[in-house]
């Protein structure tokens, strides 16, 4: 956990400790650790002299600030209308079949978490998904298999 404290202090030094720096700091921690544990939030609260409940309330508002343990690679498949029309369910099934997890679940080796998300802004190349910050568009079941195989190899 010391690593986290160091990270938080470093982020606070970098961004500042005022309330308007809360989001960049939360994002910085999620970038490194994939999610915010309760201990992490307490540390952030102390560092910024904020109530812990406020940190939790703010973080839990944002879909990308996960507070449940996430796998190393978070797959977010878009489920909004155009992607839904263009076959996102087949994409989901492919991923579920490959990784043996359902939506909201994490693989046993803690490598992948599968989630759904809302419009990613790639409707003209639907269906689309994010894996962490990388965007993948014009997905087909075959392409998904290719992409995931690369990640599995990593």
């Amino acid at each position: 956990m010391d690593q986290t404290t160091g990270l938080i202090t470093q982020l606070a030094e970098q961004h500042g400790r005022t309330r308007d720096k809360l989001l960049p700091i939360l994002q910085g921690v999620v970038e490194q650790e994939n999610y915010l544990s309760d201990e992490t939030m307490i540390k952030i609260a102390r560092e910024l002299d904020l109530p812990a409940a406020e940190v939790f309330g703010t973080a839990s508002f944002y879909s990308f600030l996960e507070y449940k343990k996430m796998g190393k690679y978070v797959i977010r498949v878009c489920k909004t209308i155009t992607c839904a029309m263009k076959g996102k369910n087949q994409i989901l099934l492919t991923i579920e079949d490959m990784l043996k997890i359902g939506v909201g679940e994490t693989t046993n080796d803690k490598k992948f978490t599968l989630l759904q998300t809302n419009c990613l802004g790639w409707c003209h190349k639907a269906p689309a998904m994010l894996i962490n910050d990388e965007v993948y568009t014009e997905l087909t079941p075959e392409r998904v298999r290719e992409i995931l195989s690369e990640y599995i190899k990593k």
Partner: protein
Amino acid sequence: MAVQYNLKRADFIFRNENDWEKILSRTLQRDKQELINELISSELKGRGGAGFPTGLKWKLTSEAKADQKYVICNADEGEPGTFKDREILTKVPFKVLTAMGICAHITGATKGYIYLRGEYKFLRPDLEKAIKEFEYYCNEIDFDFSIEIFLGSGAYICGEETALMESMEGYRGEPRNKPPFPTNEGFMGKPTVINNVETLAHAFTIFKHGAKKFYDLGVQFSRGTKLFSVSGDTPKPGIYELELGMSLQDFVDEFGDGDTKAVQVGGASGFLVPRKRFGETSIGYKGKLTGISLPTGGSMMLFNSTRSMFNVLDNYLEFFREESCGQCTPCRVGCQQLLIGIKAVKQGQKPASYLDKLLKLTETMQLTAKCGLGQSVANSFSSIVENFREEMIY
């Protein structure tokens, strides 16, 4: 298609921006009031969906008295079916930055922000590079203005201007009470101009070519061009810059797949127009569709006859139910009631007449919700239920 279409293509937005430095420096020399008048006379309206007159917004902010002012570029593009801002920021970011600089000059702001949605994080490195270059030039010409990127974290509601500012201030993205308006009390309580990416890109065009060039395009109340994000059942998905005021029929003739059943204009918070109304509907800020200005960010989603309108509405309501900030009663509970309501009618647990109760509910939401999200659910709900009622019933 042997049909004659009246869509007027234009190419102002994505045209090269290499002269941005010249445009910036020469515009900064001009009189501020003159610039405001130019912008007002162009009749440019906000391109994010709300359609507020941009010139007026910049004017009000310039008149506000404060020790600090801000310019914010709203790049939290999240309306389903909209993807044009991403393209602008990728291809012609300097137009946006320059327009922000001009706005700062006019209003007296010295700091600018780009609220970039978290889903576009991959854009950040290149955008940072562009900003660096931009700031370097500003420094060269002694212009006190710097820009910072603020990254979002996955919340559609943060596209609402006051929710965006709440988010930037480190809070939950919950819309504020209006008044006060951002032009008087915005980011950190200071006068703030907050404009959509595309609006700023058009502003650049206006300052480069003059208001008349912009004004001469489009139609009355809907001057200029707009970027349309086209997707769905179309052989030509993509981004197109078109003059405003076109007829939806012409649009479908160009972009449809020959079997277009309906078009969703303006994303999930917009209107679904059925085939029988294509001819009588025009796309602009005072379209024939309703007396209220069309909340169009330019999202155009085409549905052909294989598509179930029930599934479409279900998808939208699911979206709103999740993305609502949850603070006000009509939106938080209303969205849940609408979603569970149409499911109940479809499954026969409620009679078809229950749809009328739900329509009344959306009217209440439109009248009482605290922000545009709750107020706009009625648009797609009523247009889909009224035009495709038979698909809603068991």
